[in-house]
């Protein structure tokens, strides 16, 4: 069964106990993203102070992959610099679009490496990226740069 590779315990944990879930005030920008194929949705807010991602809050409905990856996202970016968040995002996108050929760097992606198995299922890659697309969009709206983000 290849399923275990995809649904790592880490993913199921984040799915059942999502971190930082809920929409919070104050925030600088909000993004709503939808996966038109399956109807999964996320609304995500960012609060940036100076160069620091101070908070990411979100609400949405979707599969374990989209929900867990958004939860992991908040762990990875909150408290760090916007630049670091965007380069983490690039690394995550690269992993997801790598069709299982990209070796993830745990130092950069932490729990995010659990999604390596998802990269083998093209139809699920969009799920894993849904929250990240919202983050990218929200950061851009908040005035943070997303240059260089593919």
């Amino acid at each position, binding site marked *: 069964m*290849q*399923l275990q590779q995809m649904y790592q315990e880490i993913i*199921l944990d984040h799915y059942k106990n999502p971190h930082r879930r809920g929409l919070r005030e104050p925030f600088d920008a909000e993004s709503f993203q939808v996966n038109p*194929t*399956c*109807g999964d949705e996320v609304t995500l807010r960012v609060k940036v102070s100076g160069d620091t991602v101070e908070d990411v809050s979100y609400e949405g409905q*979707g*599969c*374990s*992959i989209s929900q867990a990856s958004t939860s992991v996202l908040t762990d990875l970016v909150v408290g760090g610099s916007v630049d670091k968040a965007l380069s983490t995002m690039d690394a995550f996108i690269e992993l997801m679009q790598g069709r299982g050929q990209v070796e993830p760097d745990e130092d950069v992606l932490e729990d995010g490496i659990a999604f390596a198995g998802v990269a083998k299922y093209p139809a699920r890659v969009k799920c894993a990226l849904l929250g990240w697309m919202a983050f990218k969009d929200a950061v851009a709206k908040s005035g943070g740069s997303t240059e260089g983000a593919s």
Partner: protein
Amino acid sequence: MTDGLDVAALRADFPILGRTVRDGKRLVYLDSGATSQRPRQVLDAEREFLEQHNAAVHRGAHQLAEEADEAYEGARSRLAEFVGVDAGELVFTKNATEGINLVAYALGNAATAGPEAHRFVVGEGDEIVVTEMEHHANLVPWQELCKRTGAKLRWFGVTDDGRLDLSNLDDLVTERTKVVAITQQSNVVGTVNPVARIAARGREVGALSIADSCQSVPHSKVDLRSLGVDFAVFSGHKMLGPSGVGVLYGRRELLETMPPFLTGGSMIESVFMDHTTFAAPPQRFEAGSPMSSQAVGLGAAVDYLSVVGMDRVAEHEHSLTEAALRGLAEIPGVRVIGPTEAVDRGGAVSFVIDGIHPHDAGQVLDDEGIAVRVGHHCAWPLHRRFGVPATVRASFYLYNDLDDVASLLDGIRTAQKFFRVG
């Protein structure tokens, strides 16, 4: 099988059903509602056309062109017979979606066409009536037509058990109604709608009716004439035929005065730099080089289905649907959306599983070799109506059997185990 369909023999005609997926699992294809598989006979017919008779249709006078014309028009005739109308009333489109858009845009074009097109003009004060269970293909084109013309969109609701709520039929379909557009069979919940009754009400008030027959023509005997609709659409790829070809039926009298939609070669009568006159139907609605080999393949699909017999196809799917509904009812935590009894109901069965998102359920089924569809199945409003973002849909066709149903039920239990629910 008691219904006398020799599924094993049929399956041998479908090469893809012999393949395995996900590390050697038998393919259990339960996604025919999205697209059907093609039998060898259809693939062979298309190839024979391309290796022996291929030429530009309706444009040439050499021998290949004569043969290509004959194959293309022959396919039209067989399709017409299959759905009980005249060949001149069928227009080949690329898919059902184009067929609906064709009618919607032709209506929009009536305002700047000649007086013969007057009855097609749509404007402010007019209403277009759809239902809450439409596929996006039979909803969005009408929203857009309303946006362009100022007409108003109204719709039938859906009852808790997935039937159309027709209690307000006479209030919804009135003298203001220009078009009533209804699906004949839901691609999500399987409901078979009383299209004839709604079309009759449309006729009473002078509204045009259009049936989305995408999920009915492939699965049962459909006689469009006796259905009493003005227009109907269906797609080749859902009825064992090629992708890239669909059919629009329009009553002759309407096609004769309806303005064209796509314009270009083959649909003209005379062309000058400053004006053009148009050919008679069905050519008027077939601009450009047509999907010739695809029409030929669709003709072969109709031959195949006719040999099997559409009544037997329907009966067979009915027994599979019954078995699936029965089996699903027995699994705790599984809820079928739509009619739970196989009455006035086709073989699309959509459901949700407590504690498992449809996408995740689909993944487990896929891992078991079972191909179902997950998501909103291009019927988002219907999903909103039932308060679910998505469902898992299994849909049956003549090549499925009770083993496939059993695999589905087993797969659901496996998913519940995997996600530790139920």
